[in-house]
């Protein structure tokens, strides 16, 4: 390190960091801005229905609306790996099988 840099340490160029952070957060927010308002309640109701059959945590379901080119898609991800069937449901329950397969 030169004596000049030692005496006057260069300050980091934080503006570039600000720009990058803004680009990322705005790309994300713009994508969700146009999402219809029903998504949160759809997610809640799906969670309630699935929850009637298996033990499921709030963060085990994700509902996203995607768009690639001309086609829009509604993607529903329900993670049931390790989910325990609720009492009263027989061994033959569909969910037992699904849980085993998804491991």
């Amino acid at each position, binding site marked *: 390190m030169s004596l000049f840099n030692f005496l006057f340490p260069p*300050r980091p*160029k*934080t*503006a*570039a960091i*600000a*720009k990058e*952070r*803004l*680009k990322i*957060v*705005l790309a994300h*927010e*713009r994508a969700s*801005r146009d999402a219809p308002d029903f998504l949160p309640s759809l997610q809640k109701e799906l969670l309630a229905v699935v929850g009637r059959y298996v033990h499921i945590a709030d963060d085990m379901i994700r509902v996203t609306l995607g768009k690639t080119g001309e086609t829009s898609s509604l993607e529903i991800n329900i993670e049931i790996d390790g989910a325990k069937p609720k009492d009263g449901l027989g061994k033959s329950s569909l969910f037992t099988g699904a849980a085993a397969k998804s491991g």
Partner: protein
Amino acid sequence: MAKVIVITSGKGGVGKTTTSAALAAGLALRGHKTVVIDFDVGLRNLDLVMGCERRVVFDFINVINGDANLNQALIKDKRNDNLFIFPTSQTRDKDALKRDGVERVLDELKKTFDYIICDSPAGIEHGAITALYFADSAIIVTNPEVSSVRDSDRIIGILSSRSRRAERNEPPVDIHLLLTRYDPERVARGEMVSVDDVSEILSIPLLGVIPESESVLRASNTGTPVVFDAESPAGRAYVDAVARFLGEQREMRFLKPERKGFFRVLFGRA
């Protein structure tokens, strides 16, 4: 045809009222009959910035409720005959700003004024939405700083989905970017996002760049819109922005650090 212009930003403290006062006075100086309306119900401040706080008798809400007529509430500026101030109410009832009442008042103002400037409150609540709803043009006041840029993007989204023009599928609101409190020296040092960066991120046309300037505080101290201070960099930058708004070509100034002369260094003033 009268034009309704909303001055908005999402974030507070970026210079909406300063800009409303400066642009209204700038348009009046160019010979256009202009009224500037304070939409910040409960936090009236435009009157102070315009220097007419002791002349307020009736306000926007009084007129909406039919307790006063427009001529009783409009305050004529003492410096320019084309300029009028329409103060808001200090009531704490934010919902006093009813959309149909606002529409009626704006339609009445459109008969006599060329430009109607709506000074929006901060946020994205009722007052801010009402201020932008009837807009033909919008000026997004942004500081070169992350939270301001993000909030500007949010308000741009709201303008393109929730304004009357959007709801009626009319031609969209004409949106402009006004970057304020710009410090070219900090930009040169890589400490502040540049005007090019902000324009690129928000991707709306640039109306002007107002440099950080001591004259802005001096102007609000005395209740004089900063365009009346023809010497100040901020005043000149606002005059340029008004000219661009009217369709003229003006080169952007104050984008590069100013070379300070010997006396400026010794007695530094902006």
